[in-house]
């Protein structure tokens, strides 16, 4: 296997404030290969967004944040990169789209100006060329009548169109990596599907690798190659998408899957309430003793509460499917 395009290794991240220290990430690792779509899923507050922000080094400066580990982009450790180098990378080699399309574009600049800006910044295009390219990009992301739309302000765009415009900005410089932080959460279901389709198409056409952050497993199932499941600042399971859906190993992953509405059960059958995972996400204050999920886990044993489980393959046959659990679900069933 060649070296991965983007590699996050043992990333630890803590926020310090007067009230104490929040351990937002505790040893997160993952890899993104060229052209791949990697899904990162987990409940709200598990550290998905901060992971993305850490990759682009957009977090507040120390002493507010403590960050350790390594983030390697083409072998270069971004945690040690200079600010000038980071500015070169941001928006050019790695770009990001944000959760809320309504507030992530500047209301006083036209869409065209905002697309042209990145092109002039990174590709050193002249104003005219940048505007021409902006029109092409709007066309690429399926915005009708791009010639006219390019001169419009964000408030004249619908939410779905703004998200497309954001994607156009993010893809303007043909980045190698696109980090999409819940790109569809703020949108309704049909628009969600269109945006996902668009991302999928763009990935195939441009070869941009995508990190898709979401808490919607349905979205993951449709478009991701691999999935990383996070819980309370740590990775609890990682596998190829099919494998994960076929054999979820960590009790948390199982819980997430069970909490998904299923469309394949006939409507005539009584469906009842969707099972939910009992309890709440633990506070991130203080160091972890044992498995963070143990208090909510039906299968927890004493060991789970006292020792942090290692992240290891769940069986010898498939080394790419790994989980951090003392009692993987399979074992529990076998007993």
């Amino acid at each position, binding site marked *: 296997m060649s070296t991965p395009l983007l590699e996050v290794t043992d990333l630890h991240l803590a926020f310090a404030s007067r009230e104490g220290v929040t351990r937002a990430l505790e040893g997160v690792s993952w890899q993104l290969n060229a052209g791949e779509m990697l899904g990162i899923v987990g409940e709200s507050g598990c550290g998905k967004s901060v992971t993305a922000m850490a990759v682009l080094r957009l977090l507040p400066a120390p002493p507010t944040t403590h960050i350790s580990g390594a983030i390697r982009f083409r072998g270069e450790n971004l945690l040690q990169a200079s600010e000038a180098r*980071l500015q070169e990378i941001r*928006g050019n080699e790695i770009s990001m789209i944000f959760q809320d399309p309504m*507030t*992530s574009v500047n209301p006083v600049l036209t869409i065209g100006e905002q697309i042209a800006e990145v092109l002039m910044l990174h590709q050193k295009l002249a104003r005219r060329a940048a505007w021409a390219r902006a029109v092409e990009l709007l066309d690429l992301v399926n915005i009708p009548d791009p010639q006219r739309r390019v001169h419009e302000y964000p408030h004249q765009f619908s939410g779905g169109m703004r998200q497309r415009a954001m994607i156009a900005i993010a893809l303007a410089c043909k980045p190698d990596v696109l980090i999409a932080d819940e790109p569809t959460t703020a949108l309704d279901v049909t628009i969600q599907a269109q945006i996902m389709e668009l991302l999928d198409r763009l990935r195939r056409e441009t070869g941009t690798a995508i990190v898709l952050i979401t808490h919607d497993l349905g979205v993951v199932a449709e478009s991701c190659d691999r999935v990383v499941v996070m819980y309370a600042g740590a990775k609890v399971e990682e596998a190829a998408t099919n494998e994960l859906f076929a054999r979820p190993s960590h009790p948390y992953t199982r819980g997430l899957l069970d909490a998904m509405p299923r469309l394949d059960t006939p409507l005539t059958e009584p469906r009842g309430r969707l099972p939910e995972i009992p309890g709440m996400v633990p506070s991130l204050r203080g160091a972890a003793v044992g498995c963070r999920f143990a208090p909510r886990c039906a299968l927890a044993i004493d060991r789970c509460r006292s020792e942090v489980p290692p992240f290891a393959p769940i069986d010898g046959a498939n080394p790419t499917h790994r989980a951090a659990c003392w009692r993987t679900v399979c074992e529990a069933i076998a007993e």
Partner: protein
Amino acid sequence: MDLSLERLEQRIARQANQPRALRFARRHPLLVLGLVLLAIVVFLAIFAPWLCANDPTEMNVIARLKPSSAEHVFGTDAMGRDIFSRTLHGARVSLLVGFCVALLSAAVGIVVGTVAGFSRWIDAIVMRFMDGMMAIPGILLAVALMTLTQASVQTVIIAIALPEIPRVVRLVRALVLTIREQPYIQAAHACGTRLPRILARHVVPNLLTPLIVQASFICASAMIFEAYLSFLGAGTPPEVPSWGNIMADGRSVVQLAFGVILYPGLFLGLTVLAVNLIGDGLRDLLDPRIAKKL
């Protein structure tokens, strides 16, 4: 389709064929009214020396306190000076003071407020200083400054701008603090945009609309303030015909020659109104959400 909607479409099409200027005037009638009024005052101010037959400072003991006549359109004051000429020349002083104060306080406000909004330690120092300035009543600060320095139009401008500055800085800083937390600023960072450019291109344009409106009000109030200071004898030097000075001269002869106070007062009122109308109009014009409304 709805009949009224069709009619609306026809109207839009009709308007699209109209000359641009006419369309603009229809859409922003108050702005245009303000601009026209101000243009007239500016015109009169610039061409005052050629429009007036009489010198604004020339005294004439024989023609004291004369009512309007062909020779003295607005009459004369207690020293026989021509009010028309004085009022027109006074427009120069008022406009100069109004615009300079607005520009000066807005410029200082943008720079200081933006920097304070982005740097914590500068913020701590600057804002305590501004708090200190705000604690002194503006009129006191201005009067003190005028007595300490030699009376001239420049010192009047500084004396009026000084108490305005902390208010503008506060406004800008408050706006910057909310703007800097906006996701689009983070998005700009994520695109690799450098901080100076983010300030210039993403922060300052978002300040302009509220600031232009504020500046127009400052301009209007500065003109009033100048008249106010001159009326108190702490403003423009008495030999300069500013509206405040003319009115101050007319104070004692109000029953004999009301015109001495009336005309400069009228001009002051109209100019202030014009500037305020322009401020309101610009707010609508510059807000992209309102600008494209019918």
